[in-house]
């Protein structure tokens, strides 16, 4: 199937929305659209990242197919979004990978896991690998610390660089002109709040929808769980690194220690969130979704769930002979996860944050504008 040219179709549809605006209460994308007239490609990218894909505006649309206008905002913006990830990807060559994203994510993760397992088998004497390890430094008897930390650090650096440069490129394209620091200071906490609360997945209070009918806050809650879980896992890993290499306390740590507890809770939240989102996707009506974006999303969710689940398994079997293999699997997945980040659906997070910042700035300006006009009217 040839890649559909998304921009003209997005403009055609969003003009109809500009004239209609019935959906303005669902999310920030519509009021932002209402502030615009002509839609540049960067404007389209901005709006697309503002859209959180709640799908409410599809089921509420008076012009959805079979109407001849065939308005489908969630699907169209999902396509624009995906194209914008490719456009701003770093290194540039990664852009093409977004088109076959499901396969890329799955393949890279698989390669990383196989490499980790193979390296473990080759480098670690089998007595050490399958013996039950207990006590200080047990993990590192299986996989030497330098290998573990080196692979993770390299993958992390790559992920940060890729995501960071892509986001910088996106922000340069969408950022509003000449923002005084006064406006920026007011806008930042607003944007932060929108990011943290996922306000735009709340459907104006009615929740988001997988199909026609009552909305719910379930998707939002699962997403929050996943993000919080991921955060706790990152915390667990960093604290463990700190303990081990600054304080010289060797892993594994007791269950009631900060790294284990946060890892445990984080792993559960991450796995439940990601798996829940995967299940929700299976219930989703296909119409408002863009099929070409689904593979990458599903693969990323599966990878996140696998990272969480294997982390939990490492905790569960850490006193047994299975620990070596479990650890290798988990590390492989983590490295695979980090390696695919710059070409994955995760790009949506920093891009959306950037779009929400522009939105907060625009809203600040709009309020200031109304205040000035109100003053004029009172005269």
């Amino acid at each position, binding site marked *: 199937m040839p890649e559909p040219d998304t921009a003209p179709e997005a403009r055609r549809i969003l*003009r109809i929305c500009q004239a209609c605006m019935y959906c*303005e*209460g669902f999310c920030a994308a519509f009021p932002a659209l209402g502030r615009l*007239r002509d839609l540049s490609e960067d404007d389209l990218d901005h709006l697309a990242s503002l859209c959180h894909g709640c799908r409410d*505006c599809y089921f509420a649309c008076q012009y959805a197919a079979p109407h001849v206008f065939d308005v489908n905002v969630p699907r169209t913006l999902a396509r624009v979004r995906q194209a914008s990830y490719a456009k701003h990807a770093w290194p540039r060559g990664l852009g093409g990978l977004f088109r076959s994203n499901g396969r890329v994510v799955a393949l890279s993760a698989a390669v990383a896991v196989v490499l980790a397992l193979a390296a473990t088998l080759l480098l670690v004497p089998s007595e050490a690998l399958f013996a039950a390890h207990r006590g200080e430094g047990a993990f590192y008897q299986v996989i030497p610390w330098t290998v573990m930390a080196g692979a993770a650090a390299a993958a992390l650096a790559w992920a940060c660089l890729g995501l960071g440069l892509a986001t910088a490129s996106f922000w340069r394209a969408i950022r509003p002109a000449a923002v005084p620091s006064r406006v920026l200071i007011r806008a930042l906490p607003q944007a932060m709040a929108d990011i943290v609360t996922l306000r735009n997945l709340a459907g*104006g209070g009615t929740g988001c929808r997988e199909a026609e*009918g009552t909305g719910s806050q379930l998707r939002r809650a699962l997403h929050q769980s996943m993000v919080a879980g991921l955060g706790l896992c990152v915390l667990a890993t960093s604290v463990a690194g700190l303990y081990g290499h600054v304080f010289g306390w060797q892993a594994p740590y007791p269950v009631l220690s900060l790294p284990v507890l946060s890892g445990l809770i984080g792993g559960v939240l991450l796995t439940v969130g990601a798996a829940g989102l995967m299940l929700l996707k299976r219930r989703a009506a296909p119409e408002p979704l863009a099929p070409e974006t689904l593979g990458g999303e599903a693969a990323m969710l599966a990878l996140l769930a696998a990272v969480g689940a294997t982390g939990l398994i490492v905790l569960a079997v850490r006193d047994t002979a299975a620990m070596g293999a479990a650890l290798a699997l988990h590390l492989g997945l983590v490295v695979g996860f980090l390696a695919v980040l710059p070409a994955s659906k995760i790009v949506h997070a920093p891009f959306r944050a950037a779009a929400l910042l522009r939105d907060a700035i625009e809203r600040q300006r709009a309020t200031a504008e109304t205040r000035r006009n109100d003053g004029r009217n009172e005269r």
Partner: protein
Amino acid sequence: MIILDPDVVVAGGGIAGLSAAIAAGRAGASVLVVEAAPKALRGGNARHARNLRLMHAAPTDLMPGAYDEAEFLADLGRVTEGETDRAVALRLIRASADIPDWLAGCGVAFQRPGGSLPPSRKTAYFLGGGKAVINALYQEAARLGVTVWHAAELVGLTGGRDLAIDIHRADQRYTLRPGALVAAAGGHQADIDWLKRDFGPAAERFAIRGTPFDTGRVLRRLLEAGARPAGVPGRGHLVAVDARGPRFDGGIVTRVEAIPFGLVIDRTGNRLDDEAADRARTHFAKWGRLLAERGDAVLILDADGERRAPVPALEPIRAAALDELAAKVGLPPEALKAAATAFNAKGSAARIATPPFAAIPMCPGLTFTHFGVAVDEAMRVRMPDGEGAANLFAAGAIMAACVLGRGYLAGLGLTIAIASGRLAGEAAAQYVRSRDART
């Protein structure tokens, strides 16, 4: 479940019909809704609606200030120039007060004022518009066990004590004998031949802004059965719409809002009227009427005018020069240039001076007609003697002319439909219950 002798049949699955079905279902009746449209297009014209007019004694979380019965009635009296059945109107106005609570109980969400929605004292806005409301009401009806037949049309009606109706559905004909019928099948604006009889040949050029399924079949059956008409044939709410829009269901976005920013000329290049004379919302209706009377016309804007007007749903036709534009829209180039020169010479705020120039071809768009059946205060269809038929009720656009004999008030269509639907549904269920108690 297929019920062949339901207590109540509701003809029409628009907002009036759904309100009636839910009210009757909650009152304990078994209900069948017969909706002419297929599932994807069900819901009638409420799909295109956004707000409704509500009486309230004090500020609410949706509306500031107060809007009492007297003011509501006065507004209605003003726009209809007295062509309203006061008793029925009053009944509906009073019933409007608890519509927000009732709808919220059906899972309908309103949009709180704030942000891009300015507070409005007389009307409340739906979150996501009328299609979201329709979805919620269908879901509530299903929850109550109401049966819905989609793509099913009421085609025959025998009134009187032995009420019988014929339904056409999937090439089959069903004859049902319900206890009561609520006729909520909308107006007749989708039947172009009927419109031509009432409005003259101009109706051939009308775009019908709402559903193509409002063919007026139920209205016709009621009139044949002796129902008293309400309103005036050939009177309707017309606005100027983009002639490139669809023949049906163009909804609100094809309405041309840029008239005050440009020049309107007919196909021979004559200016129709003063474009900027009236910028109130009522100017829409004036232009609709003019287009119906004088023939289709084209709105010409220059780049400045286009920028000042709201963004139209369909991109205007553009050209760098006026004669090029004339060629594109099929106007005589000399006539267009002469009209623009004369227009600019008048010194109005809008001018046709800065390229690129834009054109929007316009035709009349019909929202609804001011014609239907008369009802009494219990929404019973009035028969020749003026009394309401015991088992025959009407709700929504099919009876709206009895309250709105002419003109329009923003948000009144939905208010009439929901209020009359609820009253009709409750009364129909009540009738069936008392009849069953007798036998």
